[in-house]
C-alpha cells in the first residue's frame, strides 16, 4: 500500500501535492494543439474539517482553468446562509517522501477555490481525498502518515 509521511507543523499536517489540469481538459488541449499548463506544486494542509479539497485561486488561474460548476459551502463566516463556491476540475498527484514515487494519483477531481496564500499555504486537502486513504496522526512524534 503506497505510503507517505510528513511533518505536523503549526498549520497542521502539511503535504506537498502536484496540481495539474484534469485528464479530460488535457485531452481537449491536446486535441486542439494547445500547450498543456505546467503542473504546480501546492502546499496543502490535511484538513479533516474540510468536506472538499480547496485550492488557492491563483493556482487555478495559473493552470488556465475555468469554473465548471458551483457548490454550496458552509464556513465559520457564512453563518446560516451557505455561500456558492466555484468548482474547478483538476488532477492531483501525491508523491511519496522521495518525490520520485507516485503515492496516489487522481486524474480528475472537482475542487473549490479559496484564498489561502496570505495564510502561508496553498489550500486544504479535504475528506474527498482522505476517504481514499488511511491516516495516522502521530502527535507526540510531530509526524503523520497516510496510506492509499
Amino acid at each position, binding site marked *: 500500500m503506497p505510503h507517505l509521511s510528513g511533518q505536523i507543523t503549526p498549520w497542521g499536517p502539511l503535504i506537498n501535492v502536484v496540481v495539474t489540469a*484534469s*485528464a*479530460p*481538459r488535457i*485531452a*481537449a*488541449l491536446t486535441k*486542439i494543439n*494547445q500547450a498543456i499548463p505546467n503542473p504546480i506544486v501546492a502546499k496543502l494542509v490535511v*484538513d479533516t*474539517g*474540510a*468536506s*472538499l479539497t*480547496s485550492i488557492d485561486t491563483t493556482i487555478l488561474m495559473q493552470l488556465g482553468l*475555468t*469554473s*465548471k*460548476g*458551483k*457548490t*454550496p*459551502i*458552509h*464556513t*465559520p*463566516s457564512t453563518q446560516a*446562509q*451557505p*455561500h*456558492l*463556491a*466555484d468548482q474547478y*476540475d483538476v488532477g492531483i498527484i501525491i508523491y511519496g517522501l522521495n518525490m520520485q514515487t507516485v503515492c496516489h494519483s487522481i*486524474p*480528475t477531481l*472537482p475542487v*473549490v*477555490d*479559496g*484564498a*489561502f496564500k496570505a495564510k502561508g499555504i496553498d489550500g*486544504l486537502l479535504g475528506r474527498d481525498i482522505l476517504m481514499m486513504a488511511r491516516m495516522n496522526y502521530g502527535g507526540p512524534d510531530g509526524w503523520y502518515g497516510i496510506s492509499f
Partner: protein
Amino acid sequence: MPDPLERDLAAYKNLLPTLTVSAGKFALFYKGEHQGVFDSYTDALDAGYKLAGLEPFLVKQILTTEYVAYFTRDIDVVCPI
C-alpha cells in the same frame, strides 16, 4: 448577456424535476441546453470538453437535496447565494 455558468445553472434548476430519476448521476449543460446524463463526474467532464472544447459548460451532480460542503475554517469565498 448572462454569465454562461449562471445560464446553465438556471437550466439545471428548471429541469431538475425531470432529472431526479437520475439522482446521483451527473448532468451536462452547454449554452443553457441539457446535453445528457452520465454515470461519473469524469464521464460528464469528458463529454463536455468533447462538445464544447474550452468554452464554458456546467457539470452538475443531480441531487434532490443540494449537498452543502462544510469547512471548519474560512476559505474566503465571497459569493453569497
